[in-house]
């Protein structure tokens, strides 16, 4: 299957600013690949280089075995869905979708059929005569999608295509977009700063920061096994503990202040000053006075009701503030503000982090 994108040592400088700093990424055919990161991390510049709008300073963009780094955008078999959609305001929906078909040497009938098919695919068949200004944001987004997909590109590039939509619509389109990708089997390269979007839609996620790839892997890998502090912090809420690492069999003994913890995840062979992280939902709240290893007493400072869960802010011995998510399962286990509790940090949920930046894994 065609649609493989390989980035090799790809670099882009704007004057003195290094926007993309020699990244290597492999996007196999038919994959839903997401570049995730804060604004200014280089994800959009990378996408624009794949599309051909920016010329790389150095490095290669290999599309199905051919280096296209110096090929102008109109000669690349990739298409883009823009963040602002960039629908041509002077053309109606059908005219927008038909725009690129002119360069495919089709007969008029065939063009009309392809446009109708593409519009059906995004369920906009009945709006073909409307102008973009007469469409809602969600409808414009679908037109932009149809306009790109009608050309059957080998790779579809999506630059935060859901960013301008409201939360409800976004959720629906996330599911649709993923289903569409699975159905068409086209490689999707998706750019977003929304970690939830990245986790729910992607086959693989590359977390980017400062023009580099911090970590690439399946959504589960990058969430559950972040290899750097940045990844741990960017993907959801995480609690960070600073401590001294030493050997403890196959695990890591972590000394935090007066207490010692056993950590079974991550860079367990690190020694010396390290950071360790644990997700709020993996901390277990126990009665004050409960005994055992990997336990830490604390006071509940705030209890925030989230609907399906409570978020507790627990000030632990030593002064750190840990965030703990307790499901609202009716057991009334959520301690109120001011209550003394014991936090259990299970060894298999405690992850020792390599210092950031680190070479990309996965």
């Amino acid at each position, binding site marked *: 299957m065609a649609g493989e994108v390989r980035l090799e040592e790809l670099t882009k400088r704007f004057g003195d600013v290094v926007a993309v700093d020699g990244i290597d990424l492999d996007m196999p055919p038919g994959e839903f690949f997401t570049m995730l990161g804060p604004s200014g991390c280089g994800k959009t510049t990378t996408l624009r280089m794949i599309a051909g*709008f920016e010329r790389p300073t150095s490095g290669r963009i290999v599309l199905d075995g051919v280096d296209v780094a110096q090929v102008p955008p109109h000669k690349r078999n990739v*298409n*883009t869905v*823009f963040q602002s959609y960039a629908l*041509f305001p002077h053309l109606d929906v059908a005219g927008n979708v038909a725009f690129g078909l002119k360069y495919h040497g089709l007969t008029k009938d065939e063009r009309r059929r392809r446009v109708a098919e593409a519009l059906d695919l995004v369920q906009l068949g009945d709006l073909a005569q409307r102008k973009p200004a007469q469409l809602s944001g969600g409808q414009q987004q679908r037109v932009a999608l149809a306009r790109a997909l009608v050309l059957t590109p080998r790779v579809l590039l999506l630059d935060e295509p859901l960013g301008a939509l409201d939360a409800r619509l976004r959720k629906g389109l996330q599911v649709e977009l993923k289903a569409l990708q699975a159905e068409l089997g086209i490689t999707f390269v998706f750019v977003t700063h929304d970690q939830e979007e990245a986790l729910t839609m992607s086959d693989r996620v590359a977390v980017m920061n400062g023009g580099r790839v911090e970590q690439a892997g399946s959504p589960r890998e990058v969430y559950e096994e972040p290899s750097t502090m940045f990844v741990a912090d960017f993907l959801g809420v995480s609690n960070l503990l600073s401590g001294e690492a030493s050997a403890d069999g196959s695990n890591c003994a972590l000394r935090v202040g007066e207490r010692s913890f056993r950590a079974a995840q991550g860079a367990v062979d690190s020694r010396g000053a390290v950071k360790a992280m644990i997700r709020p939902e993996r901390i277990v709240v126990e009665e004050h006075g409960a005994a055992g290893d990997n336990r830490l007493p604390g006071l509940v400072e705030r209890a925030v009701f989230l609907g399906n869960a409570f978020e507790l802010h627990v000030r632990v011995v030593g002064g750190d503030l840990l965030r703990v998510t307790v499901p609202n399962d009716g057991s009334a286990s959520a301690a109120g503000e001011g209550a003394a509790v014991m936090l259990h940090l299970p060894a298999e949920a405690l992850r020792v982090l390599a210092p950031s930046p680190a070479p990309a894994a996965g």
Partner: protein
Amino acid sequence: MIAWLRNPWGRPRGLVLVTGLYVAWSILPVGIAILFAFNSGRSRTTLQGISLRWFTGPAGVFHDPALQGALKHTLFLALICVLVATPLGVTLALGLQRWRGRGSGTVNTLMLLPLVTPEIVMGVALLILFLKVFPGLGLGTTAQAIGQVTFTLSYVVVIVRGRLVSIGPEYEEAAADLGAPPRDLIVRVLLPLLAPAIVASAAVVFALSIDDFVVTQYLSGGASTTTIPMLLYASARGAPTPALNAIASVALLITLGTLALAFLVYRRFAGGSDAAVAAALEV
């Protein structure tokens, strides 16, 4: 009165008052001039009754061969000017917008120079140019057309570039992404998007050309190259009758009509969103 002006809850009445006074002051003489075009007597100061004799009568403007010649020549020059300055200005605007290299800043500033140069300086400079540098061209219609194109070009560039900036690069990127080669970016995307600005700038060029006196006068070559403004100036110094007012009214009507048309076309296509062009139309 003071209390009425200082009412802090209503509209800013002081500003309304000043604006109203200014509008009255600027429109009043024009209104009086038009009114006397309909005078039934020969006086340009005493209204003796209303008639159309200075338009349709035997001595009226519609029967004056000098006026008809001047009107024809004025419209001819305006047409040439629109046909040359508009495409040239659009091309320049596109080029300047894309050109990011050395010297682009200087050229951008130089483009604005004709807008601020006193017209008399421009007129004299062009006269010297045609007499000393290109004596072969001589004075007359060609020199007048070249002169008018020279200073109207800047208006086209300014209006079209304003629109180009507000369009942004994303439509061109989208078109290239969909496979359009560079030539098609302009033909299939930029020109349709620029259409309102092109119509607006053509109208501005037309109005500037019709109204121009200084440059056109300097570069004229005899009676056959007389335009309406030149005729107005000449007859004002001769024996003025209300026919003069009638000519002026006709000229005003043509100018206003062109600008109104351009404004409507622009609003229709651009939704009246582009303040820069709207301002430019109020030259």
